[in-house]
């Protein structure tokens, strides 16, 4: 977990450089989680990713920050992988409500959920 933490700190520092002023979104573990899940698939299972993302969500809400585009869809997809269809549906619908650009894809994913 330590290298992961270190990674997060460095990434956060770099992200700070890139944007200079306040970011539009609360990034938390979103991109690092994607990186880790590809770099070492077995070591960062969906359940652990969901927990990290839900924690980020609480922190963002407390700080009155928005989640990034794609974030709710990604979380919904993780819930789907865990067999939690209700939570998956909720997240896909939130993505669609927050970002209308996602409507076509979210409707497709919601339709697929109904078939399972």
């Amino acid at each position, binding site marked *: 977990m330590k*290298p992961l933490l270190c990674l997060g700190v460095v990434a956060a520092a770099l992200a700070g450089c890139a944007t200079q002023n306040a970011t539009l979104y609360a990034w938390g573990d979103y991109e690092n989680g994607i990186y880790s899940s590809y770099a070492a698939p077995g070591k960062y299972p969906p359940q652990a990713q969901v927990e990290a993302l839900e924690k980020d969500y609480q922190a963002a809400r407390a700080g009155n920050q928005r989640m*990034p585009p794609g974030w709710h*869809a990604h979380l919904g997809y993780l819930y789907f992988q865990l067999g939690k269809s209700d939570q998956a549906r909720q997240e896909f619908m939130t993505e669609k409500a927050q970002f209308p650009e996602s409507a076509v894809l979210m409707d497709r994913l919601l339709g697929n959920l109904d078939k399972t």
Partner: protein
Amino acid sequence: MKSRLFTVIAACFAAAMLTGCQTAQPYDYRNFRANPPHSILVLPPLNESTAIEGTYSYLSTVTEPLAELGYYVFPVAVIDQFLKENGMPTAGEMQQVPLDKVAQITGADAVLFITLKQYGSTYHVINSTTTVEAQARLVDTRTGTLLWDGRGFAQQGGSGGSGNVLADLVAAAITQVINSKTDPAHMVSRLANQNLFDKEGSGLPYGPYSPRYGKTL
């Protein structure tokens, strides 16, 4: 006579090269401005380096810079999985997907095609060099028009140079151990992104979610 002709030709070439340097053409944003996209779908990058982890390491650094510029960015891992489930197991196959199909399935305004020209670290006795070079093309899904393209480059050196060879060797060994765990090229990818998207005069313009939408970089 022949040598004089050669001199003239050489002088012309030199002049052409010098003017080339002086008048760096500003990026032509006409295509972009005619159809500014709201949403971008990033496909897993083609990887021309020998580091196989490059594709997904780089993919996981692209969402933040694009979203912070003000675009809707489709969830990269969900898209990757979706394409895999639909018979496209590699980035090469994914980048062949017909644009009208992308528009139909996802509703994306534009697709970002990335090619990693360089990705990874080379280790020397005393130090190491990490290089990431990415080329990107943003293409309109409805018309196939190239909206924007660019190249991002970043390089970072490792330790060394204290004047004490033994100390340098130890430092180099330590750096390499740390680097192998945290993948320095992943970090350098973020710098390459900055170089790619935020470049003054040729970067990607702000998108609709940015408070600076409509203003130039």
